[in-house]
């Protein structure tokens, strides 16, 4: 932001009042973020029975086991593919939708409202809806695909399963991306478009040389949010549709954390996995801010 700092800031004397005002937020962060994180780090060094009656300190054994486990490496690969697909497809589709909705067309308010609705659908419900549409024996879409000669069966075919969860995850996140892109588009001064039109730029040139650069702060924000979404929030979708299968082909890292911790009650390994996941997301966010944000143009 170009504004001088002192113009916007207010100064407090002493620490009392600022601390008091910050306390509620800090308390929430401490209780709901830091405490569990510290707990996870702590239990990642232990091998514990389900009831927590005896914990044996095992040092880094939980981590060593994970890194020696080919399934864990596999889960990394799956997560990368899944997150890339969800982020790229999700951002592109919603940008196109926002671009259209931004134009002066009839009933655009209706379109906008309709496009926002999927966001209100819970992950589990979305997953059930999509897996029902694509269910090999009863699904409407599956029936159509099979008639067209595609032997659709996401229960057996890993690619089909991946396609299903990507579709569901993208569909659920489109509304969110859409709102931000639309707001971003509307914040671009109309005069910019007029100027580019006068300079003789067609719609595509205008889009790539005017709209996109001016949208970059929004796009960057959405990139970070979508990567985090694909990494963490898609858990419900996977649990309710493929359950990580077939095989382990849709078992992304966060799903494995859940499965090993809550279904299998192997808390040590599950904690170690969440510590790794935590480190990974911190790393990713740092990379995004250091290398991609440089190319973002804040108006």
């Amino acid at each position, binding site marked *: 932001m170009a504004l001088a700092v002192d113009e916007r800031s207010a100064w407090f004397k002493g620490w009392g009042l600022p601390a008091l005002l910050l306390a509620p937020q800090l308390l929430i962060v401490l209780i709901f973020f830091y405490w569990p994180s510290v707990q996870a780090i702590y239990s990642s060094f232990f091998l514990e029975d389900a009831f927590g009656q005896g914990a044996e300190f095992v040092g880094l054994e939980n981590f060593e086991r994970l890194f020696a486990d080919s399934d864990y490496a596999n889960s990394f690969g799956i997560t990368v593919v899944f997150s890339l697909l969800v982020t790229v497809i999700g951002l592109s589709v919603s940008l196109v939708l926002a671009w259209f909705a931004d134009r002066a067309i009839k009933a655009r308010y209706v379109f906008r409202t309709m496009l926002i609705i999927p966001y209100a659908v819970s992950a589990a419900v979305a997953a059930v809806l999509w897996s029902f549409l694509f269910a090999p024996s009863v699904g409407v879409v599956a029936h159509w695909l099979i008639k067209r000669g595609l032997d659709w069966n996401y229960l057996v075919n890993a690619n089909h399963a991946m396609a299903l969860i990507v579709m569901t995850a993208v569909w659920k996140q489109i509304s969110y991306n859409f709102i931000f892109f639309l707001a971003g588009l509307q914040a671009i001064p109309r005069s910019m478009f007029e100027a580019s039109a006068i300079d003789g730029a067609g719609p595509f040139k205008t889009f790539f040389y005017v709209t996109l650069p001016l949208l970059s702060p929004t796009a960057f924000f959405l990139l970070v949010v979508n990567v985090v979404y694909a990494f963490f929030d898609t858990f419900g979708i996977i649990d309710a549709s493929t359950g990580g299968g077939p*095989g382990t082909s849709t078992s992304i890292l966060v799903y494995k954390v859940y499965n090993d911790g809550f*279904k*299998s009650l192997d808390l040590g390994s599950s904690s170690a996995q969440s510590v790794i996941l935590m480190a990974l997301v911190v790393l990713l966010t740092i990379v995004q801010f250091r290398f991609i944000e440089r190319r973002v143009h804040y108006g």
Partner: protein
Amino acid sequence: MKLKSLIEKSNSKTSLRRQWAGLSLTLIGFASLPTSAQAVTEIQFWHSMGGKLGDWVNDMATGFNKSQSEYKVVPVFKGTYGESMTAGIAAYRAGNAPHILQVFEVGTATMMASKGAIVPVAQVMKDAGEKFDPKAYVPAVAGYYTSRKGEMLSFPFNSSTTVFYYNKDVFEKAGVRKIPETWSDVALAAALIKSSGAAKCAYTSSWVSWVHLENFSAWHNVPIATANNGFDSPDAKLLINSPLHQKHIGNLEQWSKQGLFTYGGRASAADAKFHSGECAMFTGSSAAYANVKANAKFNFGITKLPYYSDVPGAPQNTIIGGASLWVMAGKKKEDYKGVAKFFNYVASPELQAQSHQMTGYLPITSAAYDITKKSGFYEKNPGTDVSVQQMIVKTTDKSRGLRLGNFVQIRTIIDEELEGVWAGKQDAKTALGRIEQRGNEQLARFARTAKE
């Protein structure tokens, strides 16, 4: 009434302080109401019985609550078996476990290893002075829940086993005359069904691990793990990569390639493939009977699980699935009396017989079976006694069941590796080898936490 007047009173005064006082009094009123109204001891009972089965549990609790006035059993539905077990364990760790927790059979080893978290049922009954005869239970059921020292640790509640269902209409259309007894009969029937086009899918199966490895082993009287299937020691290793297991999974692999076997998903997902009429033959839980009966728009039959006739000693007996009730530790002595009384109520032969007929679960006591048999229920509902026939034989060390730790994970591993077989990514032998390797890692980890 009291509350209402309090609120009105507080509203009529304008002083803010009085309103606060009124509000806090109201809250105190809320908090003290339930205890002042009744002096009965509440017994929390967490279970996983949804739908019709939930009504069954609720009726049972209501019946018990009406039969006496000292105790009140409060059943709470806690989601799937896996979910309620996790919830129960989390509650125990937080210091407010329920009195009774329903745990599925694959969680048995974990519960048994949790010394101090549970109270053995035999002890609960003894301390409360209630009569309890473990011999009244069907051996294959009781054995599953009895410790190495011969003490019954949990209370058998709902048990089922695996049976074979077939669509009689499709059989007629396809010209299948012999009801399959062996796996080669199944293959022949499947080939006929496929070539005649009488059904879209010839054969499918729910609970692949439970049917094709766990029950398969007991049915052929071969071990599934060392240390007598884990009964003798938590330090056990899987034995599922034998030539017989390889032959069976290899056959399923072949049939899957030829379109004779269709994989229908994990757990009970394939049930719907049978009762919708899509698949003509199906292996699954005997407790799927109620659902099949309600949904199938065709004539169906139930018969024993197929076997390989060249295996000596086959068929032996099948093993159970389902759940038992565990009593959690750390409650008042008085509460345990209520738990014992409730168990005694549930164990009555009449109630057991009624449960068996209503739910399709096995009769878990011999008396319940006799009552049902005398009532003519099996003649009226042919096929419902198949599961009983498979179970009421003397079990061997190999067919008693299995007691393997981390078995929830191992079942997932089995599903994962076998899905690789159905997808044509690996052959049966590779999959079974991987299951043994990954499963044994789980067992070794369990053995470390379950030191005795």
